């Protein structure tokens, strides 16, 4: 038996009928077609599905769509709002090479943006602790931490110490 939900997603009011067991992440991906929110595990460990629910980062695989009835949801597609520019966190991830395969990235960016909202100038340890709910398998988190620091306005050294090129044969 389907239930009616009314959810504001990225500034657009949606009215849909969903099964009570439909997870918010499936509602976002399958019903709304917003595929930037990803699924990486069955058990709420990986955080690839992180979105903002009424301004707070949540794992959308741990919430039923019906629980989000009457709420405001922001996904990666809506994080920049009306701006034609990227959100500063998106820019920071790009500039600091905070992503490789890109699969965890939307969830990571949503979590990181929420982290800075609560704590605009976190220490490195606070960043590492704050992102514990999001697993990245590619970057070793090094550049993700740098990206969050950069987004927080810190000067982050972007250069590498790999040395000069040598002539080839």
């Amino acid at each position, binding site marked *: 038996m389907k239930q009616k939900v009314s959810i504001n997603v990225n500034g657009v009011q949606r009215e849909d009928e969903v099964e009570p067991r439909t997870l918010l992440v499936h509602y976002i991906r399958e019903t709304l077609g917003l595929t930037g929110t990803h699924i990486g595990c069955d058990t709420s460990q990986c955080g690839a599905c992180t979105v903002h629910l009424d301004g707070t980062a949540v794992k959308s695989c741990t919430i039923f769509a019906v629980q989000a009835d009457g709420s405001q949801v922001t996904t990666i597609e809506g994080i920049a709002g009306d701006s034609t520019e990227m959100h500063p966190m998106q820019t920071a991830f*790009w500039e600091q090479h905070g992503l490789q*395969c890109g699969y*965890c990235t939307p969830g990571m960016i949503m979590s990181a943006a929420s982290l800075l909202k609560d704590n605009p100038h976190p220490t490195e340890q606070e960043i590492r602790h704050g992102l514990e709910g999001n697993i990245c398998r590619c970057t*070793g988190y090094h*550049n993700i931490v740098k990206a969050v620091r950069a987004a927080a306005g810190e000067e982050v050294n972007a250069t590498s110490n790999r040395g000069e*090129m040598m002539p080839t044969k």
Partner: protein
Amino acid sequence: MAIGNMVGASVRRHEDPKLVSGAGTYVDDIKLPGMLYIGIARSPYAHARVTGLDTSGLDGQKGVVARITGEDVRKRQRAPLPISWIVPPDIKTPEHWAMATGVVRYIGEPVAAIAVEDRYAVEDALDMLNIDFDPLPVVTGVEEALKEGAPLVHEELGTNQAYKFSVATGNDLDEAFSNADVVVKQRLVNQRLAPVSIETRGIVAQYNKASNELTMWSSTQTPHLTKHHVAEMLGIPEHNVRVIAPDVGGGFGSKLNLLPEDFIVPYMAIVTGRPVKWIESRTENLMNTVHGRDMVDYIEIAAMSDGTITGLRANIYANLGAYCRFFAAGLPVLAGLMLPGNYKIPAFGVDIYTAYTNTLFIDAYRGAGRPEATYAIERTLDILADELGMDPAELRRKNFVKEEDWPFTSAAGLAYDSGNYVPTLDKALEMAGYMESRARQQEHNASNPRVRKGIGLAAYVEIAGWGPGQATKGLGVTNQLFGSATVRVDRSGTVEVLAGASGHGQGHTTSWAQIAADQLGIGHEQVKVYEGDTAMIQTGTGTFASRSVSVDGAGVHIAAQKVRDKVLRIAAHQLEVDPADLVLSNGMITVKGMPLSEDVVAAGKLQTPEAAEEPAPPRSVSFNDIAHSANTGHDLPPGEEPGLNETAFFDPVNFTYPFGVHIAEVDVDTETGETTITRYVAVDDCGNVINPMIVDGQVHGGVAQGVAQALWEEVVYDENGQLITGTLMDYAVPFSSDLPNIETGATITPSPVNPLGVKGVGEAGTIAATPVIVNAVVDALSGLGVRHIDMPLRPEKVWKAIHENG
């Protein structure tokens, strides 16, 4: 040949704007009209006879469109799942079919599959299947499997042993050991790991019955290999199969394979006549995508009292799991052949034993054979250093192959391409402030504190850049490994690169653009890179074994050179000069030193429609003008073909051998057994570097996976072959708070085996990090009588080691 200024720059990645915007397209983002969802019923037993398979519960179940069982698959599958590395030639391999018939041999082996209209209803329908199993005796460990009387995984083979392979070279081993001042021995367990790409595997397949054409979107590292083998398994002409790897969310080797679903899913598209989608759950991923490692080494080193190594011998026991998968047979061989590492070993011998067990098949996981080799030699060298009372860094320095030893062939018979290990060690020691850290450590530990400090170091050399055709044939590899690239320029002057690698996070879209732009004298933004579509890319091998840059990247370089040559020929004709007198840079072709004849200008040969109002400056023509000429067929030299589209297939003359030295400092809490990494320094020599930012990123990620093996990760089966680590609650992938910052540095020793001088870096960090961390932890505890602890060094294991010795 020179490499220009476009290569070697930390260019921001071209692929990122869409990925940070959630606008990538991964397999699960693809939705086709009328698409069905596939569910797979899997064995809950590690070894059992299937005594009943009743699908009648699905009758009348809403939305269930099709069901297949092992019998259906067996009738339809034309060839078993392919094995691409047959080594040694006498290896015993069971036929591996996509679905079990009669007997299941590992947890999760497919026994039936269904196609259902609704994604959620798949799980409901799977519950309606009634399958009976009669459990059989189980063997999970490699050493147990090789024992007399062990349960047989494949009765028809008459043994669990797949092969025994031996290598012995150099001086007499027994003599080396009997004449040695010191002999150290150690048993080392390289535990089983799960690759855990954050995107699980997934396939969408669509079949056109009228034309007998199959299109498959797959989260794969090897679209062209997949195309070949899917065609073979389905009995469809290869040119009727198209495989597309869209954005792929990581692989680490786990997606280079051909696994049961690579047959089941397209077969379901044929059965139903509708598009089908299968997305692996995380539990399926941990249970049924390949595992890595699972080797036990018994290693012995003979040395003189001054630290000179005189001999090395080892027995390697490698678990293959229930079947021999794509590259699996070769990995223990690599683990044996790379054992000599960075060192001169006058007498060398290794015996390799492999066995089938009732566990998931093992295959390539980041490093694939080389981490096992490096861990074994580097761990044992620390034990030797301890025995000799020698500094671990100095022991390595003493035995390193030196610059003057090149051309160098290792004790295992591998000709290393190039290397210079001492400067790399020195750079790592300097970056880490090694001497000062040692002094601080000794002072700190002297007071026998609760938290002890340890310093670990390891050198590595790996075999990358797979690879040279004839040499890999000699090693038993049956598939292609050469590089493939097309560089084509369209009428407006924008450039497309079509490459045979298949990136899934490595930044090829950016690096290949840099390589091509460098040769074409244009900005990298003017180049767009395509990979991963077999209908579009001329041919390809895929991305694995740190091969992409040194093989396909080199192909891009060569194809771009061919385009450059043609651009210069056309420009020379138009400017009436010799091509050798032209310079191509910043999008312009200019004559060096020679005035342009007036009649050329008067004849308007330089003028293109766009440039008609403004005569081109004398003695030069733009790259875009030449692109226009080539693509309209206007103003070409006599006999020159129109078009600007060149392809190169690059077969390197040898593998590459990247190397490096990593150093870590750790704090070990003796009361909790917990390890904290306080510093990590990685100095890697991967030859020339195309994009240092991307190379650093590869090192970071590789180190993270190596550290994770050293400290946390382990796939665990119980004595019944039941998987204990089937979710990310149980399989300990590290979080951001677990890992340190990673300080990267480099030395640069170009490879002579490809025109870019690159060696590859994808696996380096993973190879180095495990011995570094274990050496550091054991170093911290050395004053407490702890000589070795097997990975993963989880707190309870470390705590026990301290207290057993205390």
